[in-house]
């Protein structure tokens, strides 16, 4: 392997190293694992990458993410070297032009959620069950944290740099990397839905706002469950894009046993998720994206007769879309990603609203070399 090229800093011991990283502003406010050459080389060896290999570019920041910098940040985040294949694929997704990296600095405080799907979930012991969105599992937490440190250290994505979110995102540090339940019970796994073979593992990045829970009470029929989710989604944000919807295995089994495919679930959601023009006006959404140059003119903002019976669908094209969704949103990916994740009890599912503009979800295959030596 070629030599590493990062600048080096000498400190007395491990505790001094942790403090030094704080002093340099290299952390997210929590301690990091000191990035030593031996550990970084082990990470690079595991994925067979030279230090200078470019994993992705961020033209907006004039940056290249090299394997060396990615490995350093993965070490600091607390990863094991076995996690590196996921980290590499996630970085590739982050730098994919379709993801549109620059929006992460937005006032809206979006942050990418990562969905890991496929055989690697079991091998890395990733959490797909209870507390799936919270901390507690090393793989979930540190893979997610790596992207946070990477964006801060290699793309100025920190407060005081380019990070401009009004409120920030509580999931940024560790809570936004989840795994899909790999059990084979007739459900089409997320990575297969994305067009990959069953024995391939993938990571999907979606830029989202924090999650919203949807209690179903005792609704256990397909239309009833979807209906409740649809109502909650329609009232939250109403941003045209892709919504990840997480449900524990018992709810997924309802659809499997009833013979519903994901395509049918998505079609049902597209048909039923809508807002009336009256409600859109009351929420200040009607005309929000109307612009002078598009020639739509002044729109009445008050509710008029007939508005309660006139609807705009979230994912289905309609004549009034231009009054509710901006140009970029009307052209980007849209729909739902149903993912089996979360606990088996509680009569609830959850979903995440996509960031309101520009970004698209990106799925990349994970090149897994297998168990570490």
């Amino acid at each position, binding site marked *: 392997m070629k030599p590493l090229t990062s600048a080096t800093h000498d400190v007395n011991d491990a505790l001094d190293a942790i403090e030094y990283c704080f002093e340099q502003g290299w952390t997210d406010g929590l301690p990091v694992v000191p990035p030593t050459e031996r550990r970084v080389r082990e990470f690079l060896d595991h994925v067979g990458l030279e230090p200078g290999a470019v994993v992705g570019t961020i033209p907006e920041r004039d940056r290249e993410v090299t394997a060396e910098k990615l490995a350093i940040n993965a070490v600091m985040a607390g990863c094991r070297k076995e996690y590196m294949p996921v980290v590499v694929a996630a970085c590739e997704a982050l730098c994919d032009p379709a993801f549109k990296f620059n929006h992460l600095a937005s006032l809206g405080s979006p942050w990418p959620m990562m969905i890991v799907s496929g055989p690697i979930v079991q091998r890395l012991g990733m959490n797909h069950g209870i507390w799936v969105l919270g901390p507690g599992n090393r793989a979930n937490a540190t893979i997610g944290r790596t992207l946070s440190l990477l964006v801060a250290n290699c793309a100025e994505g920190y407060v005081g740099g380019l990070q401009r979110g009004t409120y920030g995102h509580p999931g940024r540090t560790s809570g936004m990397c989840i795994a899909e339940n790999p059990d084979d019970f007739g459900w089409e796994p997320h990575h297969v839905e994305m067009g990959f073979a069953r024995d391939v593992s993938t990571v999907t990045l979606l830029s989202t706002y924090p999650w919203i829970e949807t209690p179903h009470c005792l609704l256990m029929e397909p239309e009833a469950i979807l209906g409740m989710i649809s109502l909650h989604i329609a009232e939250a944000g109403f941003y045209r894009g892709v919504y990840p919807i997480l449900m524990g295995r018992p709810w997924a089994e309802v659809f499997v046993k009833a013979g519903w495919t994901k395509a049918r679930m998505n079609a049902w959601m597209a048909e039923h998720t809508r807002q009336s023009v009256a409600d859109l006006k009351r929420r200040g959404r009607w005309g929000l*994206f109307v612009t002078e140059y598009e020639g739509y003119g002044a729109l009445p903002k008050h509710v008029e007769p007939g508005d309660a019976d006139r609807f705009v669908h979230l994912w289905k094209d309609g004549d009034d879309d231009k009054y509710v969704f901006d140009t970029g949103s009307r052209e980007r990916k849209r729909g739902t990603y149903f993912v089996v994740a979360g606990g088996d009890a509680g009569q609830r599912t959850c979903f995440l609203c996509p960031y309101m503009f520009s970004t698209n979800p990106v799925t990349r295959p994970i090149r897994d070399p297998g168990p570490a030596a």
Partner: protein
Amino acid sequence: MITLLDPRSGPVVGRVNRARRLPALAGKTAGILWNGRSYGGDLLDRIAALLKARHGVELVLSLKKAYIGNVAPPAYFDEFVAKKVDLALVGLGD
């Protein structure tokens, strides 16, 4: 003693695709595309004034997007071409 590796990386000028740069500013024309965010217009106007004072760059076009979330319409780009604008001043965010 522990030796740490620096996790940061900086710009890699010239290795990532960027808009073509002008070899010199003297005698060139400029256009502004303001995204509409607060005070962005003031900032871009100030930059244009400095470009004129220091390099003789003439501001020939100033456009404002009505909403930041929308892509600039093709008509805007047509105007930049019609006015033979050499350099565009744009900004992101606030």
